[in-house]
C-alpha cells in the first residue's frame, strides 16, 4: 500500500471534481488490471470510456461501486470513498463506511439485474424505502416520476419477466435514479439488447444528459452514441488511459496509433 499521507483527507473547494481517481491500482490476484490511474470527472460531465476487452474499462466503473482497490484513493464529491478519516489520517475504510459512501453513486448493469420478484415500481421503491428510509408514499411518488421520465409508467405494475430487454433497462435506470445519486455509472447498458430496442435506452440517457446535471460515466461499444452525447471520451488500453479528449478530437482526429487501430476495427465491425 502506498504512502497514504500523500493523499488529501478531503479535496479543497477550488479543486473538487465530482469523481477523482488518484494513483489508483487494481489487481485481481497476480494480474494488474489498472495501473496508477489518474482520472477526474467534473460535476455534470458525461464521460464515456471505450477500449478493447481486457483494457480495464469496466473495472474503472466497478471500482467506484463494487470492488476494492489495491493502491491510491478514490474521491467522490471531494470525500474519499475507499478510505476514511481516523484521527486526521487516512486509513482503509470499513465495509460499512464504503457502503454508505457509495450511496452517492448509482449503477446500471449490462444484464439489468432487476429484482424478479418485484414489479417495476417496487424495484424503484426498494432503495429509497429500505436504504434511505423514505416513507412508502414518498418513495412511490418519486418512483412514478422517474418511471414517467423513462417512459415506463404504464408498465409500473409489471414484473421484469413481462418486459423486453429495453424496457427492463429503462426501469433499471429509473431504479438507480431513485436513489438521487450524484454520479451515475452505465456499464455497457446496451450490449445485451437487441438492435431495435437500443434506441429506447439511448434516448433516455440522452434525455438525462441534456435535461439534468447528472455526472455520468459510461462504458459502451456504441461509438456513434458516445460521440453524440459525451463531453469527453477516454480510450483505455492495457489498464491505462491511452488517449482522451472531446468526441470530436478523439473520434475525428485520434493521435495515438492504438486509438486509430481500435476505432478502425470498430468501424469495420459496424
Amino acid at each position, binding site marked *: 500500500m502506498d504512502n497514504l499521507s500523500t493523499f488529501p483527507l478531503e479535496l479543497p473547494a477550488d479543486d473538487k471534481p465530482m469523481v477523482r481517481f488518484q494513483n489508483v491500482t487494481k489487481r485481481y490476484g497476480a494480474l494488474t488490471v489498472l495501473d496508477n490511474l489518474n482520472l477526474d470527472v467534473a460535476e455534470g460531465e458525461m464521460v464515456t470510456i471505450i477500449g478493447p476487452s481486457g483494457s480495464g474499462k469496466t473495472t474503472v466503473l466497478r471500482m467506484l461501486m463494487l470492488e476494492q482497490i489495491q493502491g491510491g484513493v478514490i474521491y467522490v464529491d471531494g470525500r474519499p470513498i475507499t478510505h476514511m478519516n481516523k484521527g486526521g489520517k487516512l486509513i482503509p475504510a470499513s465495509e460499512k463506511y464504503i457502503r454508505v459512501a457509495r450511496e452517492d453513486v*448509482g449503477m446500471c448493469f449490462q444484464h439489468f439485474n432487476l429484482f424478479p420478484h418485484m414489479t417495476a415500481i417496487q424495484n424503484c421503491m426498494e432503495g429509497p424505502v429500505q436504504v434511505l428510509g423514505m416513507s412508502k408514499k414518498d418513495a412511490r411518488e418519486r418512483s412514478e416520476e422517474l418511471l414517467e421520465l423513462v417512459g415506463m409508467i404504464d408498465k409500473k405494475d409489471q*414484473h421484469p*419477466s413481462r418486459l423486453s430487454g429495453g424496457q427492463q433497462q429503462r426501469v433499471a435506470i429509473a431504479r438507480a435514479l431513485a436513489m438521487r445519486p450524484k454520479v451515475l455509472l452505465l456499464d455497457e447498458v446496451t450490449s445485451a439488447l437487441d438492435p431495435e430496442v437500443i434506441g429506447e435506452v439511448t434516448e433516455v440517457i440522452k434525455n438525462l444528459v441534456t435535461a439534468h446535471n447528472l455526472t455520468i460515466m459510461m462504458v459502451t461499444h456504441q461509438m456513434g452514441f458516445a460521440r453524440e452525447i459525451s463531453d469527453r471520451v477516454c480510450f483505455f488500453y492495457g489498464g491505462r488511459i491511452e488517449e482522451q479528449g472531446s468526441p470530436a478530437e478523439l473520434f475525428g482526429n485520434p493521435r495515438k496509433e492504438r486509438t486509430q487501430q481500435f476505432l478502425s476495427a470498430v468501424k469495420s465491425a459496424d
Partner: protein
Amino acid sequence: MSYPEFLAVHGGRYLDGIQVTAVQFLMAAALAIVISLIMGLGKLSSNRLLRWPAVAYIEFFRGTSLLVQLFWLFYVLPLFGITFDKYVTGFLALGLNLGAYGAELVRGGIQAVPRGQWEAAYSLSMSPAKRMWRIILPQALLNMLPPWGNLIIELLKGTALVALIAVPDVMFEARQINGSTFLSAQAFGTALIIYYIFARLLVTPFMRWLERVMSRKLGRA
C-alpha cells in the same frame, strides 16, 4: 376377517396414530426449517466463528444415523440431567437431523441466485441483512423448493421412528395391532398405505402448489 372388517375394528387406532404422526411431522418440519436457515446461512458466512460451527453441525448430523441420534437423545441425554418428554425428543431428533440436510439445500439455493442480483442490491447500498432478506432469499426459495419436497417426504418417513421410543404414532399402532391380531399384512399394510397417501396425496401436491405460488410471486408463472 375381511379387510373392510379389519378397518372397521381397528380404524380408530390408526386415526389416533395419524394425529400423533401429523403433529410430530409439523413440529419437526418447523424446527428443520429454522435450523436449515441458521446453518445454511452460517455456512455461507465469511465469518469463521459463524461458519465452523455450522459446518460441524451439518457434518455431524448428516454423518450419523437418525435412529442413533434419536436413541442418544432419548436414552443418553437424561443421564446428563436433560430429560425431554418422548414427544419432544421425537420431533427434536427429526428436526435437528433433517435441519442439517436442509441447510445444504438452503446453501445451494442461495448460491444459485445470479451474481447480478447481489451486485444490484449492493449498488443500491442495501445492508447485508436487507440484501439477504429482501432480495436473495426470496429468489433462493424458489430454487430450493423441488429438493425440499424430497426432504419433507424423508421427514415424514422419519416420523415412523418415534414409534421406537414409544410415541403412539401410526407405526406404533400398527405394531400393537400386529402384536394382538397377527394379521401382519393388514396391520403393516394399512400403515404403509397411510404414509403413502400422506406423501403422494398431501405433501407432494402441497409442495407443487407452493412452487406455483412462488413462481407467480417471482413473476415467472
